[in-house]
C-alpha cells in the first residue's frame, strides 16, 4: 500500500517537474526564435546586395518579398531573383563533425556558380576547415554546374571540377554532396517556374 503511494507521489513529482522544465524551455526557445528571425533578415540583406541591389532600410522587407521568391526544402532555403536570373542557395548539410552551412550564388540561366561562401563549419582545423579559405572558395567562382560539381584530388579537365583539399577526403565529399543535392532540388522547382 505504502509502496503504491510512494510510486504515485514519484509520478506526480515527475509530471510537475517535467511541466516546469517544458514551460521554462519554451520561454527560452521563444527568445531564441526572435533572434533567429533577426539573423535571417541579415542574411537576406546580404543576398539582396549580392543580387546587386541597394538596400533601402525602410522598404527592404517589402522590396525583397516582391522581387524574390523563396522556397524551402528541409534545412535548405532557395532565394530566386527572376529579373536577373540569379539565385541564392542557403544550404546546410552534415560534414565530418557537424553542420556545414553554405551560401551559394548562381546564375541559373547560364548554369554557372557565381560565388560560394562558407557561413559556418566545424571541420578539423588545418585539414577540413580549410574549405573556408579564400583560395579554395575562389575556385567556385564562374564554375559551370551544368553536369555535377566535383571536388577531385586529381582533375581530369572536365567542366565543373575543383581541386580537393589534401587530407580532408570526408569533408570534400560532404561539401560536394551538399552542393549537388542543393542544385538538384533547386533545378526541380527553380528553373521552370519564374515569378511573374
Amino acid at each position, binding site marked *: 500500500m505504502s509502496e503504491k503511494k510512494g510510486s504515485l507521489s514519484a509520478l506526480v513529482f515527475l509530471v510537475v517537474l517535467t511541466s516546469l*522544465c*517544458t514551460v521554462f*524551455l519554451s520561454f527560452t*526557445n521563444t527568445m*531564441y526564435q526572435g533572434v533567429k528571425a533577426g539573423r535571417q533578415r541579415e542574411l537576406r540583406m546580404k543576398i539582396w546586395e549580392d543580387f546587386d541591389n541597394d538596400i533601402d532600410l525602410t522598404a527592404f522587407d517589402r522590396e525583397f518579398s516582391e522581387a524574390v521568391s523563396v522556397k524551402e526544402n*528541409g534545412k535548405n532555403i532557395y532565394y530566386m531573383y527572376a529579373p536577373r536570373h540569379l539565385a541564392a542557395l542557403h544550404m546546410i*548539410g*552534415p560534414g*565530418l*563533425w*557537424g*553542420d556545414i552551412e553554405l551560401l551559394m550564388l548562381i546564375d541559373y540561366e547560364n548554369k554557372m556558380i557565381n560565388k560560394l561562401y562558407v557561413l559556418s563549419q566545424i571541420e578539423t582545423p588545418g585539414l577540413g576547415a580549410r574549405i573556408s579559405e579564400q583560395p579554395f572558395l575562389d575556385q567556385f567562382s564562374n564554375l559551370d554546374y551544368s553536369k555535377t560539381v566535383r571536388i577531385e584530388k586529381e582533375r581530369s579537365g572536365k567542366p565543373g571540377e575543383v581541386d580537393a583539399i589534401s587530407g580532408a*577526403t*570526408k569533408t570534400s*565529399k560532404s561539401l560536394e554532396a551538399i552542393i549537388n543535392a542543393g542544385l538538384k532540388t533547386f533545378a526541380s522547382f527553380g528553373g521552370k517556374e519564374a515569378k511573374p
Partner: protein
Amino acid sequence: MSLALIVLASAITNNIALTYFLGMCPFIAISKSLRGAAGMGLAVTVVVVITTTVNYFAYRFVLVPLRLEFLAFVVFIMSIAGIVQMLEILVERYFPSLYSIFGIFLPLITVNCVILAVSLFMVLREYTFWGTVAYSFGSGLGWMIAITAMAGLRKHLAFSSPVKNLGDAGITIVLAGLMALAFLGFQGMLA
C-alpha cells in the same frame, strides 16, 4: 550511400571512440578485463540500436511536426533512460544467462555518451530509417571493437612498466592514441 558503407564507415574509418572521442569514461574505466570490455561493448551495441531507432521515430514523427525540436535533448535522454531500465528488467527476467554477461553494465549505459551522441548525430546527418539502423549498429560495433582491442592491449601492460607518472589512466590514453593512429590508416579505404 549503401547501408554496408554506412556500417563500415561508422565502425572502422570514423570509429566513434577513436575519431570522435566518445564514450571515453567507460573506455578507460572498464577496459581492464577482456570479459568486461566485451560485455560492455555488447550492451552498448544492443542499446544504441534500440534507442536510436526509437529516437528516430520520436524526432521525425513527434518533435518535428510539433516544432518542438529544441526539446530533443530531454526527449532523447529520457527515452534512453527508460529503455535501458526496461531492458534491464526484461533481460534479468527472461534471459538470465545473457544478464550475467552484460546485464550488470546496463545501469552504467545511460550516461555513456556514445548512446546519446549517436542519436544527436542521427539528427544532424538526416539519415533515412535504414540508414539510422545501419549507422547506430556500425557505431556500436565500432565502439565494441575499440574497447575489446583496448582490453586486449591492457592485458599486456602487466608485463611492462610504463612511465610511473603516467598512471593507469594515462597509459590507457597513450594506448588509445596509438590505436587512433592505427585506425587513421583505414581512412583512405572507403571513398
